[in-house]
């Protein structure tokens, strides 16, 4: 029957007095049905909520549309003979408080729905002559059938407070004038889609840089992902060959570099490749070059250097990850190919690579995403440089490092937020397209 379903609508329509009362006084139904502790707790939540809303929440919501209007003032104090600053509105705090208030309201709505459904469920239990679980049974159930609630509440709370709220807050900044440009650091306004227009406009200064950075980010991600993948795989195959002696030793040599913290190796590489760094010194001492190679000051060389160093950083990871999977490739496939007279290259491109692509598409997508968001390698190696005069983005900046520069260094928060959102949009598109075109999505049957 329709009214047997435990829904909010049914609770409001077919609920008894106490269930309906729960819609106003949260927890009323539970109190009536002897679930005292739960009922009191829920009711306390409601009281705290209203207390918060009356003392602060409504004010925050009220301020949200304007983001504050009172500028910081300077008033001449006749008695003390000094200028005194009056505290104006701080738009950034208003925005944060507004976003948090919205989340508090959403949370109380969820709680309201849950408790209403629960009250209705209790009512149904009584009507059907079943027993209402007491507190002890409820607690017991939290360690049995409802264990996921016990285990996941804290992690979810952490994600909500330290990931989702900051994300929403940052996204909302993209639609404001919060930036050092035009001195909008204390007091700013809603700005609609203007910043998005600026970023997408190819003729403007920011827009030109955006498309430039985007182009390099994608080139970088493709090179970094696939070169690492293929070269790492070939290396793994060379080590795995029957004839290779001392497999464990070779693997150790390569894997050792993973164990050294990445930021340490990257900073060392940066120093080693300076004009008077170890590599240039070594090459000059050997008489191979007369002038130091400008590893970080020439845009093209810097880009190539970064990709090559990333091979150094990334190949050991690939080696670790693909070794096991490579050994799973059925031996008959190779036998058959060899019988038909296929060479090593042909075997690699016709058998090994398709098999590996089939199994590791999720891994490839993950590493593509990781490379687009690869902050450390650019920031620590080239710092995004070389940078042309008047630009905020350097020639080797990725979207993430540019985002970092815009927010932390330049304090152009709104532009930074727009760049973050664009990165997300691009990653979503890439992920969806590759995932839908991958053979593991099209054909969930096993390989072949």
């Amino acid at each position, binding site marked *: 029957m329709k009214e047997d379903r435990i829904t909010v609508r049914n609770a409001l329509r077919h609920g008894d007095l106490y269930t309906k009362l729960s819609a106003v006084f949260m927890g009323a139904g539970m109190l009536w049905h002897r679930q005292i502790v739960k009922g009191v707790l829920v009711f306390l939540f409601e009281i705290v909520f209203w207390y918060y809303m009356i003392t602060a929440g409504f004010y925050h919501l009220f301020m949200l549309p304007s983001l504050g209007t009172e500028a910081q003032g300077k008033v001449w104090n006749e008695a003390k003979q000094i200028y005194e600053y009056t505290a104006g509105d701080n738009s*950034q705090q208003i925005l*944060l408080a507004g976003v948090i208030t919205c989340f508090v309201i959403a949370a109380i709505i969820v709680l309201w729905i849950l408790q209403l459904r629960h009250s209705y469920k209790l009512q149904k239990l009584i009507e059907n002559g079943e027993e209402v679980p007491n507190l002890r049974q409820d607690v*017991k159930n939290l*360690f*049995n059938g409802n*264990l*996921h609630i016990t*285990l*996941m509440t804290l992690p979810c709370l*952490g*994600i909500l*407070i*330290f*990931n*989702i709220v*900051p*994300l929403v*807050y*940052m996204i909302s900044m993209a639609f404001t004038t919060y930036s050092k440009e035009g001195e909008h650091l204390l007091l700013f306004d809603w700005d609609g889609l203007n910043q998005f227009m600026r970023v997408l406009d190819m003729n403007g200064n920011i827009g030109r840089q955006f498309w430039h950075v985007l182009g390099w980010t994608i080139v970088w991600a493709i090179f970094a992902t696939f070169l690492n993948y293929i070269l790492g795989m070939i290396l793994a195959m*060379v*080590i795995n060959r029957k004839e*290779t*002696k001392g497999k464990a030793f070779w693997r*150790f*040599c*390569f894997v*050792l570099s*993973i*164990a*050294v*913290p*990445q*930021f340490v*190796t990257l*900073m*060392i*590489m940066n*120093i080693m490749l*300076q004009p008077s*760094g*170890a590599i240039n*010194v*070594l090459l000059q*001492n050997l008489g191979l070059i007369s002038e130091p190679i400008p590893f970080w000051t020439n845009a093209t060389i810097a880009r190539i250097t970064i990709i090559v160093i990333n091979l150094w950083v990334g190949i*050991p990871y690939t080696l670790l990850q693909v070794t*096991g*999977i490579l050994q799973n490739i059925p031996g008959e496939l190779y036998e058959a190919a060899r019988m038909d007279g296929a060479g090593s290259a042909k075997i690699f491109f016709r058998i090994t690579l398709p098999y590996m692509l089939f199994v*590791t598409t*999720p891994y490839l997508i993950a590493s593509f995403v990781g490379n687009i*968001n690869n*902050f450390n390698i650019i920031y620590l190696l080239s710092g995004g440089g070389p940078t042309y005069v008047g630009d905020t983005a350097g020639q080797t900046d990725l*979207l*993430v490092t540019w985002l*970092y520069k815009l*927010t932390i260094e330049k304090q152009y928060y709104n532009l930074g937020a727009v760049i*973050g959102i664009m*990165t*997300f949009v691009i990653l*979503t598109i890439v*992920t969806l397209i590759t995932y839908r075109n991958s053979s593991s999505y099209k054909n969930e049957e096993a390989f072949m």
Partner: protein
Amino acid sequence: MGNQLDLNKISTRKRIGNLHLLLAVLALIWVLPIVWIVLTSFRAEPGAYTKTFLPQGYTINNYVKLLTDRNVLNFPKMFMNTLIISICSCIVSTFFVLSVAYSLSRMRFAFRKTYMNLAMILGLFPGFMTMIAQYFILKAMGLTEGSSIRLGLILVYCACTGLGFQISKGFFDTIPRSIDEAAIMDGATQWQVFRRITMPLAKPIVIYTVMTAFIAPWVDFIFAKVLCRANADQFTVAIGLWNMLQKEYIYQWYTCFAAGAVLISIPIVILFLYMQRFYVEGMSGAVKG
């Protein structure tokens, strides 16, 4: 006929020899920078740039200075800061990761699919996008001044670890469910299954989770830098090492930087060699699942 076979054998042997040579050259490229940094940490002459590739003289003063000089860059203090932070965040995030992974792998509830999709979507946002907002939130909580920065860093390091459940979940998925079912038939609760059955069986992945969580604060410098700003007494090891390479310190501190890098790498190398096989197992488990 016999002649041809011989020729074949010789060319095969030659090819194998070439492959070993190739491996040796590559291994040299991979090991050389690490050897170089170890040598630099014992180098007698100061400065980042020298006229020669190899050091002229060797000393252990770099290590002594690093561990005793408390005036300019207080490395021992940074070491203690990082140790406290990483022990706390290690405990919390291990609990978070394993709880979430177990729930998603073993329990069936309405929110499950939503949670996994949400985790995937959140993973597509650049991590730094939330950094500045996290700073503002911690500031609103009053966790950005003095020694409360430590608490702030712990919160930042472990709060979102519930999103990194994939590898552990992949491992849990490979443990046969029939074991759980048998235990439940014998009257065990889900909690008991989690504690007494799944955890002991998943020892490799527990160790893996503990170690990755422990290492994270040692190698992150960017969050720590944004949160600590100029509070030198709250610096972590990573910021300290990063600072040693800045213009004002690099000449005096470069060899100490190398010593510090070696010191924090040694425990990580040991942990890593130990957990390497779990890493591989975890990866293949995740791919299969």
